[in-house]
């Protein structure tokens, strides 16, 4: 059964122990940007249960293809061609259709097209670095892009981000809103990174690590990486006919 956008049941409370702590001194910028007071908890109201949804007319034909959506006509971004795909599900394992996913990343050399990125690696004149798509009926999504590069960042004296793609994900309710990052299986930089290390356990890091997917790889074109995403699920309520509970 898919996830119905009209479902108005409240969400299961977020288990914050499975997310990074706000304050993590290993990630120095979090020190001054982390609230010290306890979050206030309450039952979801319509404000959290509802959320923005976006029509298919929002999305352009090349929005999902980062190799071409900034390139001159007929040209393509430089780098290792990859497909990043997966399924968006909720905590009950149900697909989440019609949900907006936005991504951003460096080019193949580890450089962002951003006014504040001053890394010495060159910009690629045919690569912008953002993409977006809506999930299909079965919750699936796919992007075409190039594998991003690792890059150094000011934290400790010699910190490098593993290659990663940033994901911004909408579900159907504002409480499901999530930003995460996708890493690549086998990257030796993953265990060295303080931002990866804000996630408290290995299982959480594994959830953020895409796996090589030869079945979805297009021969002589692009290798595929699989990245499934799970958003918060909704509570069962007495109004739903499931007497056995969960």
């Amino acid at each position, binding site marked *: 059964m898919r996830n119905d956008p009209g479902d108005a049941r409240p969400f299961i409370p*977020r288990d914050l122990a499975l997310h990074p702590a706000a304050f993590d001194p290993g990630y120095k910028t979090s020190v001054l940007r982390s609230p010290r*007071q306890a979050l206030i908890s309450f039952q979801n109201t319509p404000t959290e249960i509802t959320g923005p949804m976006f029509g298919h007319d929002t999305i352009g034909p090349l929005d999902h293809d980062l190799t071409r*959506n900034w390139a001159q006509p007929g040209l393509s971004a430089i780098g290792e061609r990859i497909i990043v795909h997966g399924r968006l599900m909720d905590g009950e394992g149900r697909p989440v259709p019609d949900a907006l996913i*936005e991504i951003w990343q460096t080019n193949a050399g580890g450089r962002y097209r951003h006014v504040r990125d001053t890394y010495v690696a060159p910009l690629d004149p045919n690569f912008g670095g953002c993409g977006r798509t809506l999930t299909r009926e079965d919750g699936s999504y796919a992007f075409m892009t190039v594998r991003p590069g690792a890059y150094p960042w000011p934290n400790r004296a010699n910190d490098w981000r593993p290659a990663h793609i940033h994901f911004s994900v909408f579900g159907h309710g504002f409480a499901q809103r999530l930003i995460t*990052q996708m890493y690549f299986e086998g990257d030796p930089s993953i265990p060295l990174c303080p931002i990866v290390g804000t996630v408290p356990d290995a299982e959480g890091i594994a959830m953020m690590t895409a796996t090589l997917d030869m079945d979805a790889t297009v021969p002589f074109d692009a290798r595929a990486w699989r990245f499934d995403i799970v958003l918060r699920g909704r509570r069962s309520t007495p109004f739903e006919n499931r007497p056995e509970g969960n």
Partner: protein
Amino acid sequence: MARLRETPSQTAGPYVHIGMVPTFAGVENTYPEDLGSGPLYSDGVKGEKITIKGRIFDGAGAPIRDACVEIWQADADGLYNSPAERRGLSDRHFKGWGRAAVSGDNGVYVFETIVPGKVPLGDGRVQAPHIAFWIVARGINVGLHTRMYFPQESEANAVDPVLNRIEHPTRRATLIAEREGNVYTFDIRLQGDGETVFLDV
């Protein structure tokens, strides 16, 4: 059925603009416009048009200049623009959702919107008019949820179920905007003196 664990959150990082407001970041023309930019309303909207602006301060009292803010709110009748809204159809001239980067110079964010209506909970309790805020930035590991309330709604605020979850009146005050005519200022303090109340939604 076994529940699936939620994918962990990660910081949006300093380059969040590329993905969420690419024109602002200098990645122009990938999309026709930045999603969620401009007024939340179009011509014919019902309700009082207002401007909301503010800054987000870190624990040292400095405005942060690389954050992105999203807001979500009901229309003038208290209805959300969502398929999960069961009480009626919301105003077709009102999107209900907006997104803005704070200024890279002075850290100010701005939204052009309307005053939302009250939102009943269905059990007799009524939420005062409010706007949900979600804040992401470098150094914020899990996006921060909070709410803005309106200073002229003191009676509704006094019985608002979420405001009443906050024990100390001084902390409750961190969620009330300051008003000057049709312009509301809602500053957010991430840490320390006057720390804004953040919500576990």
